[in-house]
Structures are given as C-alpha cells and as structure tokens.
C-alpha cells in the first residue's frame, strides 16, 4: 500500500518538475501572451501582469493555465475574437476582456471553447464583447464567477452572454450577465448545471434554453430581461429556487415553457412578471411550492398542456391567477393557497370546503378576444366575474383546486 503511494507521488513530482511558469509583462516578463504560449507546453502556467494587451486573436492550443494578475486587459479593438481555446484542460483565470469584434458571419466571442473538454474559465470580466463566453462541443467545462457586460442596444448587434452549443456536463456557476442578447444560451446541452447566476437587463431572454435535456438550474436570479426566461423543446429539466422578477412587457414571461416534459419546477419565486409562467405543449411538469406574487397572470396554461401538477404553491396579489384558452383540462391543481379564495373552512382542517376556480370569466374572455383587455378593471368585468363565481358557465369545469388552503402553503 505504502509502495503504491510512493510511486504516485514520484510520478506527480516528476510531472511537476517538467511543468514551468512563464511570465508576461511586468519587469522581467515576455512582452506578448502569444509568444508565451509559443514557448509553453502542456501543463505550463502563464502569468500575465497588469497591462493592456492588443494582440488580436490569441489561440490556446496547449493544455495550459493562463492566469491574469489584477485583471490585465485584453483589448480586441472591435476586430478580433480574443481567446480561442482549442486544447483540453485549459484554464483562463482573471482577465479583463474588452472590445471583441462584431461579425454577422461568425460568432465572435470574448472567449471561445472549440471542441475540447475540462476547460475552466473563471474570474474574468468581459465588457463590450459580442458573444461573451462561447462553447461549442465542450465537455465537462466550468464557467465560474465571470462578469459579462454588453453595451449594445440592438438584438442583431448583440450576442449571447454565455453561449453553449452541443455541449455536455457543463457547470455555469456564479456568473453575472447583463446587456447581452440572451444572458445564458443553451442549445443541445445535456447533463449540465446552471447555478447561482444573476442574469439581468438582457435584451431578449435572461436564460434561453433549447433542445437541452436533463439539465438543472438552481438558485439563479433573472430580473428585468426583455422577455424573461424561455425553456423550450427539452425534457428532464429541473428548476429549483430560482427567482424570476420584473420581466414586464408585452411579450415578457417570467418563465416561458414550450414543449417541456418530465420536468420539475420547485421553490421558485415569480414576482412582478407580466406572466409568471406561460406554458405551451408542456406535459408531466410538476410545480411545487413556488411563490407567485404581483404578476399580471400567475400562470397561463394553454390547452395543449397535459399532466401539469400544481401543488402547494402560493398565489398572492396577481391580477389573474390562471388563464387558459380551452375548456379541456388535463392538469391538476391541489392544495395551493389563493389569496382570492373566498370560501370557508367549517371543519377547521385548514382546507377550504369549497373548491377554488382560479380562472376568472374575464380572463377567459380576454384569452378569446384580446382587445377586451380594454375593459380591464372596469365595473362590468368584476360584475361578470362575480356572477361566474356563483353560476359557472364559461370557465372550464375541471379547472379547479379542490383543496384550496386557508393559509399560505409555506
């Protein structure tokens, strides 16, 4: 046993002995990063001292660590992609990357990972880049604690913050993204986690997620993005403890679910969104212990959804709790708290004795005839809603919570 440890240690020191550290900038360093990479070999570390480096496109084709001290600036002069990673296990740590080129022909990124694995990109600041951190065919890469800020105002002029395409086992953790087209963009990405990111003020979506199965996103905050968050054409998605806030606008959703199946949405908070959740063609989605507060619509569930389970959620101060566009309901609502519930609890089991119908008549009318929104908050609509509550006729019969809670679910 002891012997094998010694062998491992020996191999480690041997390898270590052959790896070297190269310094760029400062008093004794090489002047350019490109030269340093040329001199380096796999396993080496390049330390970059503070300064402004205008070297065009830097290609890292060896498995090295590129580490900046006190955020050295890499300036792309609006012409170049700054760092292109084309080797496995590269680490890019602590750079300030600014002014990437903008191109409609190719997706220029601040940092781009080409078809490699185990890359770590951390603690960088990206400003005024077209795409921020771009991964294609990446595997087991980590993108940690970066700050990405784009300044473009128009959707065409702006790329995505963290863009992953056909990748697997990615870790996107602790990044702050603002001003990009989409904050985080996933397409064909599997088995990945998006954790503790803050994506706000992006032009389109805070998170845009397509054809990406079996991913989880946890404890992220999405605030004030042009259209909120879109999760589409995926299955096995877990969304836990995220916060969707202030996604307010004509076509803005806290969370847009399209063709999503076998997914879990738990303990999220939806505050002040035009629509908290908008669902279309979703099936087998479980919503549990989420908070919907002060949204225009807490949930819009189109008739194309089925087997949506809505349980133990709190609905507070939403203009409309639920709206739908059909009469067939294949979804279940159970044991939620609805602040608009006006029933009673005679047997004191904390469950209302009358079912609650979260779809108001007026919301049905609006769904069928959008200009009727003109009558929002008018006397006649509240009159209609009251009548409908007493004598349900238009609202779907099956859409009701049979066990509405008398007190908040959590």
């Amino acid at each position, binding site marked *: 046993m002891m012997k094998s440890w010694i062998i491992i240690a020996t191999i480690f020191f041997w390898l270590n002995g052959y790896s070297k550290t190269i310094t760029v900038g400062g008093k004794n360093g090489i002047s350019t990063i490109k030269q340093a990479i040329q001199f380096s070999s796999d396993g080496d570390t390049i330390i970059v001292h503070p300064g402004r480096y205008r070297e065009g496109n830097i290609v890292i084709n060896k498995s090295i660590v590129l580490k900046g001290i006190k955020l050295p600036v890499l300036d792309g002069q609006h012409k170049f992609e700054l760092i292109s990673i084309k080797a496995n296990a590269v680490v890019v740590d602590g750079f300030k990357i600014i002014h990437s080129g903008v191109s409609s022909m190719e997706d220029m990124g601040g940092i781009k990972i080409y078809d490699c694995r185990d890359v770590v990109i951390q603690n960088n600041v990206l400003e005024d880049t077209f795409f921020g951190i771009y991964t294609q065919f990446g595997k087991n890469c980590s993108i940690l604690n970066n700050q990405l800020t784009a300044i473009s105002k128009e959707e065409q002029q702006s790329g995505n913050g963290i863009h992953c395409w056909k990748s697997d086992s990615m870790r996107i953790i602790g990044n702050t993204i603002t001003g990009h087209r989409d904050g985080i963009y996933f397409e064909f990405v599997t088995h990945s986690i998006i954790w503790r990111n803050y994506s706000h003020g992006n032009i389109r979506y805070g998170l845009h997620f397509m054809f990406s199965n079996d991913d989880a996103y946890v404890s992220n905050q999405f605030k004030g993005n042009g259209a909120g968050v879109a999760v589409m054409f995926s299955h096995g998605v877990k969304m836990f403890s995220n916060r969707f806030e202030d996604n*307010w*606008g*004509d076509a*803005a959703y806290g969370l847009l679910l399209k063709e999503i199946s076998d997914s879990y949405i738990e303990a999220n908070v939806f505050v002040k969104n*035009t629509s908290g959740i908008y669902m279309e063609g979703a099936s087998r989605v479980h919503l549990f212990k989420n908070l919907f507060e*002060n949204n*225009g*619509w807490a949930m819009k569930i189109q008739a194309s959804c089925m087997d949506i389970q809505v349980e133990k959620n709190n609905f507070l*101060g939403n*203009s409309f709790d639920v709206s739908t566009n059909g009469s067939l309901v294949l979804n279940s609502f159970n044991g939620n708290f609805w602040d608009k519930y006006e029933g009673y609890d005679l047997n004191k089991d904390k469950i209302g004795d009358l079912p609650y119908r979260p779809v108001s008549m007026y919301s049905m*009318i609006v769904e*069928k*005839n*959008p*200009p*009727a*929104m*003109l*009558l*929002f*908050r*008018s*006397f*006649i*609509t509240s*009159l209609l809603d009251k009548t409908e509550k007493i004598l349900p006729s238009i609202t779907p019969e099956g859409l009701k919570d049979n066990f509405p809670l008398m007190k908040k679910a959590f």
Partner: protein
Amino acid sequence: MKKIIKYVLVDIIQNRIVLIYTLFLLVTSFSVFSLEDNSSKGLLSMLNVSILIVPLVSLVFSTIYVYNSAEFLELLVSQPLPRKKIWLSLYTGLTAALMLAFLVGVGIPLFVYEPGLTAVLMTMSGLFLTAIFVAIALLASVKTRDKAKGIGIAILLWLYFSILFDGLVLFLLFQFADYPLEKWMVGISSLNPVDLTRVMVLLQLDISAMMGYTGAVFKDFFGTDLGRIITGLFLLAWAIIPLWISTRLFHKKDL
C-alpha cells in the same frame, strides 16, 4: 357671477351631503392605503373609487340639487341677471364644491401615500369626471321637469356610463371578433369619459404590458404627450358640450 357662485357654494356647504361625501372619500382612501400592503393595488382601488363613486355622486347630487334649487333659480331669473350667468354659476358652484370634496377626500391621501405622476393623473381624472358628470346632470335636469324622473335619468346615465357602455363594447368585440378592432377601440373608448380616464390611469400604472397588442396600440396613443393632450381635450369636450347644451336649454326654459 362671482356673487351667485358664492351663494351657491355657501348653500351647498350648508347642505351636509357634500361634507358626508368628503368624509366618505377620506375614510375610503385612508382605509384603502393603510389596509393594502401593496401600493399599486391601493392605487387601483382608488381608481375604482374615482370611476364609480365620483360619477354617481356627481350625477345624483347635482340633479337633486338643481331640482331643490328651483325656487332659488326662479328668484334669480326674475332678477336683472342674465340666465347664462345664473346657470354657469350654478354649475361652477356645484363643480367647485364636489371637486373640493374630491381633492380633500382622495387627492390629499394620494399625495400623502403615493406622491408622483400617477397621483397627479388620478386626481386630475377625478376632477375631470366631477366636471363632466355635473355637466351631464345639469343637462338631464334641465331637460326634465319632473324631479323623480330627473333623478331616475341621472341614475340610468350612471348605469350607462359605468356598466352598460362597457357591456356594449364587449358585445361589439365579440360580434366583430374577426376584425382588427384595436385602433377602433381607441375611438370607442373616447365615447365614454369613464373608460377614457380608466384606460389613461391604467396605462400610467404600467398595466399596458398586460393589455397585449391592444395595450400597445393604446400606449402608442394615450402614452404620448399628444395622446394625453387629445385625451384631455376629449374630457374637456365631455364637460363643455353638455354644459353648453344645457345652458342653451336653460336660456329658453320656462320657469
């Protein structure tokens, strides 16, 4: 004219109804703002007060007041005073008293709890609605000699502006559901001052996002300065035209 307004005002203030109205508004406003933890919800509740209670009180109170002042009017008409002045003074006195009640009952709480552009807009719209519905009440009462009938008409008018009109709009929307009606709706809403003020305040509260395409069309119109000016002119017209007609009718009325 000032003198007549003074006497009308004194008379209305002696009449306790306006005082009760003021107190009612005050109590409502303060309870709304202190009970609602959410400020925008409080504003929406106040909006309901302005678009339901203000027209109702303005219409019914003014109508009754005009009928009850028949003697006063008769006395004034036999005096060397132009009828136009008498009528406009009556209108001004009524409007001023009810506006004052609204300012104290709703305006002050609004500025205490929610100072800002929305408060300004809501107060303005309440004042406009007061001016409009006093004018409409005067028109209704100058047209009908019988007091009971006049009050009935006032209540019917309130029902029309608060409920029936919107019902009609809803009906039209469904009848012509296949046509793009959004732009027409801007025009149609200007046919009802209650709708006009409601939409304007809602847009200010940034509910427009919820109104979808309709909201966008509305915002394009009502959200701009030009739109606000046009809306203001429309509201002004809603006050001036009934007032003008009623003045003409009063000018020829047999007392």
